[in-house]
């Protein structure tokens, strides 16, 4: 526990000690603003909800989250510090959790900084704040799932670009499996049960539950399984030294 905290503290410090944190925060906030108010037609919708805000998150995170996570392990491999870290008296899991939690917390901070959207909705109307809370929770889990996948790809290579691209492709698959235009394509030849099974693997299916204001244990179980599996795969990838 203590070691996990020490690793997480260092990792978080390394985000804020480099331009990565500030570039990410600015770009993230600009893009969410743009998508919500311009592309998402927040005002034209005439409803006091954050649907226009959360609806873009699976796509926005697709590029931004791998950018946050790609260096986690790839950089340790490239710089040789992996050797230092793995010869310290800590278990690999403490390092894996520490790094994952630090980067998750970082995205949590970015997400928390979007509070003006919530304020705007509350000033202009009376939105269901419980629903907004569920939406934020879903968004945080979505980011956690992408991030764990990025941890996995980052642990496999010493090249951050490779880690980034592999992670984007894997996360894209997690979106497309439940994306309506894709499931519509399958309707012609696949049984509904098959389509549902494939869609059940998608983050979108489970993310939508949260956006309706429902915190379903099945959706939580899905996100925790993706995170658990990916971090386990990370530990396997790290065995290759």
């Amino acid at each position, binding site marked *: 526990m203590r070691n996990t905290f020490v690793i997480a503290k260092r990792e978080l410090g390394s985000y804020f000690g480099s331009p990565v944190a500030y570039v990410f925060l600015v770009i993230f906030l600009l893009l969410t603003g743009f998508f919500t108010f311009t592309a998402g037609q927040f005002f034209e919708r005439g409803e006091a909800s954050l649907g226009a805000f959360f609806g873009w998150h699976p796509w926005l995170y697709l590029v931004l989250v791998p950018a946050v996570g790609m260096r986690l392990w790839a950089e340790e491999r490239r710089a040789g*510090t992996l050797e230092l870290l793995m010869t310290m*008296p800590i278990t690999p899991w403490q390092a894996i959790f520490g790094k994952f939690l630090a980067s998750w917390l970082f995205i949590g901070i970015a997400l928390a900084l979007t509070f003006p959207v919530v304020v705007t909705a509350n000033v202009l109307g009376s939105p269901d704040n419980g629903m907004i809370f569920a939406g934020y929770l879903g968004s945080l889990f979505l980011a956690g799932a992408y991030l764990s996948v990025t941890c996995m790809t980052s642990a496999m290579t010493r090249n951050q670009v490779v880690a980034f691209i592999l992670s984007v492709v894997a996360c894209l698959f997690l979106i497309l499996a439940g994306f309506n235009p894709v499931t519509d394509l399958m309707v012609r030849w696949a049984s509904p049960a098959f389509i549902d099974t494939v869609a059940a693997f998608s983050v979108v299916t489970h993310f939508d539950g949260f956006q309706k204001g429902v915190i379903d244990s099945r959706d939580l179980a899905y996100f925790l399984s993706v995170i658990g599996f990916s971090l386990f795969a990370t530990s396997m990838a790290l065995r290759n030294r």
Partner: protein
Amino acid sequence: MIQIDNLVKAFGAKRAVDGISFKVERGEVVGFLGPNGSGKSTTMRMITGYYAPTGGRVRVGGHDVTESPLEAKRLIGYLPENAAAYTDMTVRGFLEFAAELRGLSGAAKRKAVARSVELCFLSSVLHQSIDTLSKGYKHRTCLAQALIHDPEVLILDEPTDGLDPNQKHEVRNLIKELGRTKAVVFSTHILEEVDAACTRAIIIDRGRIVAQGTPDELGRPLDEVFRRLTIPDTVKA
């Protein structure tokens, strides 16, 4: 303190370390000699638990490195070959991080950092970011990390690599000094260092021990002994 039995590491069909056995007691400084690619670093990586051995075993302070890695790693201070360090941290931040991972906090942490800084002459660069340091300082920062918890076992992979003659001299003296109370293994391909700092030398070539003993037992001049025992990498296997 360190006991190695019939240690083997294979990468695919190539055996980088091929049945090495030796012991190092407290109060000994063992110089690990050999041409590049002879298996020095691989052996050290197995002692420190970074590589899992293909065969044989390593015990540090009685703990098997594979079976109880945490207990063994607590006893070891390790300087890896390239003296890797987190370049975005300051020297102080990095040493505090190492101290915290070694379970030190509060006053004990401050004391450990101060001691290491003094031993490795780092006080003038304490608040500098590691990526702005010269090679010598970077190397010494990583060495300070290895000494932070005053370990009983020191594994130093080419500790004088990239240092200027004055720094080399300082580091050799430091190793000699530390060796009075600890078990030290350091690798090098600079033969004078064997005379300057070691109580015993082990020469390895192609993953096997080809000679060991005190510098006097190995014979003189050392570089002739070294050339006779090892095969240059320009000769085909």
